[in-house]
């Protein structure tokens, strides 16, 4: 384009230009390989920084005198002490799984039903519900946790894993409702109209037809709920008073502060590995669904 406009007809400019272009292309190829080398060096150095602590933790959990009992190589002593720590590792894993399972299921049920209602029905208080849910984002969690603690004490639901899960579902609602509302709104109306004509109820259409179409959004919502619940610290710290009910993060912090005996950094490393592995696995397998959470968010922004 630029060549045709700048070339004055009648002047033989093509040969030097061609020559020039070849030289420039060569220079560009050279600079590209320099840039490539720069990219891979920088990225590799950053990878060491980001993965280093994780790899060290995994290594530290199986090496050193506390892990091997004095022998060289690697050993599982740290994990064995972790299993016996406090109320027992399996107890903490169970508690965390209960909280996480209930939070994921609760978030999905409430978000799918609510998102369907927000996308497809007009009902009184619809906008109020949407604003109310988004307001949860604006309010600091600690602001609600103190009165919630009082309320749960009042109704005798303190120190309960179910209470923790209920509160975590509430914290997940803004994201869940927003994602599911957008997912349902993106579906063609004909899909459920056909089902309704076939005699399905609204709930039947939702269950038989629409759920399959919004599964990707549900995976994203479920994954965010899982990561948040599995790793949540402040809510169980405030609500759970009995050590037998602690979730993994709370149990690990009390292990670190030596509340139940001496501080055992070896067992702590083992605990960090046990806590992190489900999340890391989920991340590596479902990373694309995690990223979708942000793409949906940036549509709004």
């Amino acid at each position, binding site marked *: 384009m630029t060549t045709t406009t700048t070339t004055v007809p009648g002047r033989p400019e093509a040969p030097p230009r061609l020559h020039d272009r070849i030289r420039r292309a060569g220079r560009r190829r050279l600079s590209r390989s320099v840039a490539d080398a720069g990219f891979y060096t920088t*990225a590799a150095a950053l990878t060491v920084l980001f*993965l280093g602590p994780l790899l060290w933790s995994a290594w530290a959990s199986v090496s050193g005198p506390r892990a091997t009992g004095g022998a060289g190589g690697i050993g599982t002593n740290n994990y064995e002490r972790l299993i016996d720590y406090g109320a027992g590792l399996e107890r903490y894993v169970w508690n965390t799984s209960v909280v996480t399972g209930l939070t994921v299921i609760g978030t999905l049920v409430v978000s799918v*039903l*609510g998102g369907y209602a927000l996308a497809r029905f007009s009902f009184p208080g619809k906008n109020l519900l949407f604003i109310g849910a988004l307001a949860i984002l604006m*309010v600091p969690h*600690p602001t609600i946790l103190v*009165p919630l603690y009082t309320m749960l004490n009042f109704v005798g639901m303190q120190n309960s894993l179910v209470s923790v899960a209920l509160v975590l579902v509430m914290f997940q609602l803004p994201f869940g409702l927003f994602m599911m509302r957008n997912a349902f709104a993106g579906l063609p109306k004909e899909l459920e109209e056909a089902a309704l004509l076939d005699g399905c109820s609204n709930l039947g259409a939702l269950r038989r037809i629409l759920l399959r179409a919004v599964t990707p959004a549900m995976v994203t919502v479920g994954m965010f709920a899982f990561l948040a619940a599995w790793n949540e610290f*402040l809510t169980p710290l405030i609500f759970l008073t009995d050590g037998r009910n602690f979730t993994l993060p709370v149990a690990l912090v009390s292990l670190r502060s030596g509340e139940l005996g001496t501080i055992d950094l070896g067992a702590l490393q083992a605990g960090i590995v046990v806590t992190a592995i489900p999340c890391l696995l989920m991340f590596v397998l479902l990373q694309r669904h995690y990223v979708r959470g942000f793409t949906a968010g940036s549509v709004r*922004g």
Partner: protein
Amino acid sequence: MASSTVAAARVGPASRGPARRARREARSGLLFALPAILFVVILFVVPLVLAAWMSLNDWPLIGSPAFNAPDNYVAISENRLFVSSIWFTVRYTVVVTVIYLVLALALALLVQNSRPGVGFFRTAFLLPAAVGLASSALLFYALYNNEYGPLGDLLRAVGLVEGNADFLSTPEAAFRSTVAMVTWRFAGFFMIIMLTGLQAIPVEVYEAARMDGASWWQTLRRITLPLLKPTILLVLVLSVTGSLLAFEPFYILTQGGPSNSTVTMVIAMFREAFTLFNLGSAAAIAMVLLVALVAINVAQLYLLRDKDTK
């Protein structure tokens, strides 16, 4: 079969009048929304009102509350731990937000083009975000332990420190060590947000810039940054909100020390409630946090809207 005829019979009369159909729709909609409404009202609206009411009362952990407004607010304004925690938290928020913005953008620019292996690097940078904040703090607590962790030896070998490295024993070192930990934990998370923003910029814009002979720096300043503004503001809002409410990093890594030099506002609130059992004052701190955060978020959203209309 039987159920479908029943459903058809039900659809029949309802579709007769538009008013009836609207009423039916409203009822179905409310029914579907009911769980969400219950959650928002019982676990969010009611506690929020209760927090406001508690902040006006002397509210011990055990025993009956007594109205004492505005004593709690006077008390927290004279509470030196809380007042100094405000400045500490604001300073922390400014420092980490600047780091997040610069680092996340740099990382996103580094891995935005597809080339062999780039997916691996993206995952590697993002992976710390999968580890819980509490676990990350514990992991770095062990890393910073000179007898147990390798970091002190590593820094000495490189020649950055002499003698024993000092990670958590002075206020300044504790602050820096915590900033390093949260940077490790959140840089990849914010990188992904920046990356989705970068990928929303049409390729044609960059091609046009290259045709015009724009340099890398000019492209960044004149094209990438202006078009990325909504994403940058999203990162800003998330970082400011999250950092003003920081709890785990300091509660676990520094335990607020040494000598209460790293107490954040939420840690001050937590101690007021669950160490001193003074729930009224804790609720007052919670209300102050709420008002401050809403004000800051509204200001940032206003900033965002202003940029959009321009």
